[in-house]
């Protein structure tokens, strides 16, 4: 069985990716840096957005200064600068 993970796009990330979500095939040990490369390979227009965005994994913000490893089934979200209120 192929394992997968999901990436969600919101706001300017959704506009750049022209979709609100993607599914990627999971490969063992894929890191946040490798994820970023995969995202840009699929959606070059995300380049600018990713520079100012945070990642959330399973609805928790990730520390931007630390690398992390994607797990199968993870729900990863690109969180551009927020503007609620």
């Amino acid at each position, binding site marked *: 069985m192929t394992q997968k993970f999901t990436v969600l796009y919101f706001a*300017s990330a959704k506009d750049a990716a022209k979709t609100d979500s993607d599914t990627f095939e999971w490969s063992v040990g894929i890191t946040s840096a490798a994820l970023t490369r995969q995202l840009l390979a699929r959606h070059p227009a995300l380049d600018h957005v990713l520079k100012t965005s945070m990642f959330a994994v399973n609805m928790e913000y990730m520390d931007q200064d630390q690398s992390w490893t994607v797990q199968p089934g993870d729900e990863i979200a690109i969180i551009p600068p927020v503007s*609620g*209120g």
Partner: protein
Amino acid sequence: MASPATAHKDFVKITDDVISLDEVAKLVRDPKAGAISTFSGTTRDNFEDKEVKTLAYEAYAPMAEQTMKQLINNARAKWNDLIHVAIYHKIGDCPVGETSVVIAVSSGHRRQGLEATAWLIDELKVQIPIWKKEIYTNGGPEGTDGGEVWKANNTLP
């Protein structure tokens, strides 16, 4: 003897519906409360001299609600007099004059409720995954599109 202490309740919601201040404030009523503080964010008709036609909000709803709950937990750690806390945020269109967010806090005495309300809206604006798009009129003929832009909250109030 005063009646037994109330269980503290939290209410968080991301909703498509129009938000009623009264409804949200009623959630936090309690016989132990001496104070109910609320904050409502409403759509202004202007931003830096551009005329705003409407706002549209988008949210990562399940994470937004979860993060709101964490925010309330943090507020309770800072202020021990809070009773019930409610945070409602609208998504979708929010025309000028309409309410985008309501925070309501009941507390035994007023000081902590007022402080927590101010803190919660400050933190909501930097932590909760919700995005606002401003859609402008350009001052030309009716219906002319003045463009739109995803906003970013700056960290200053």
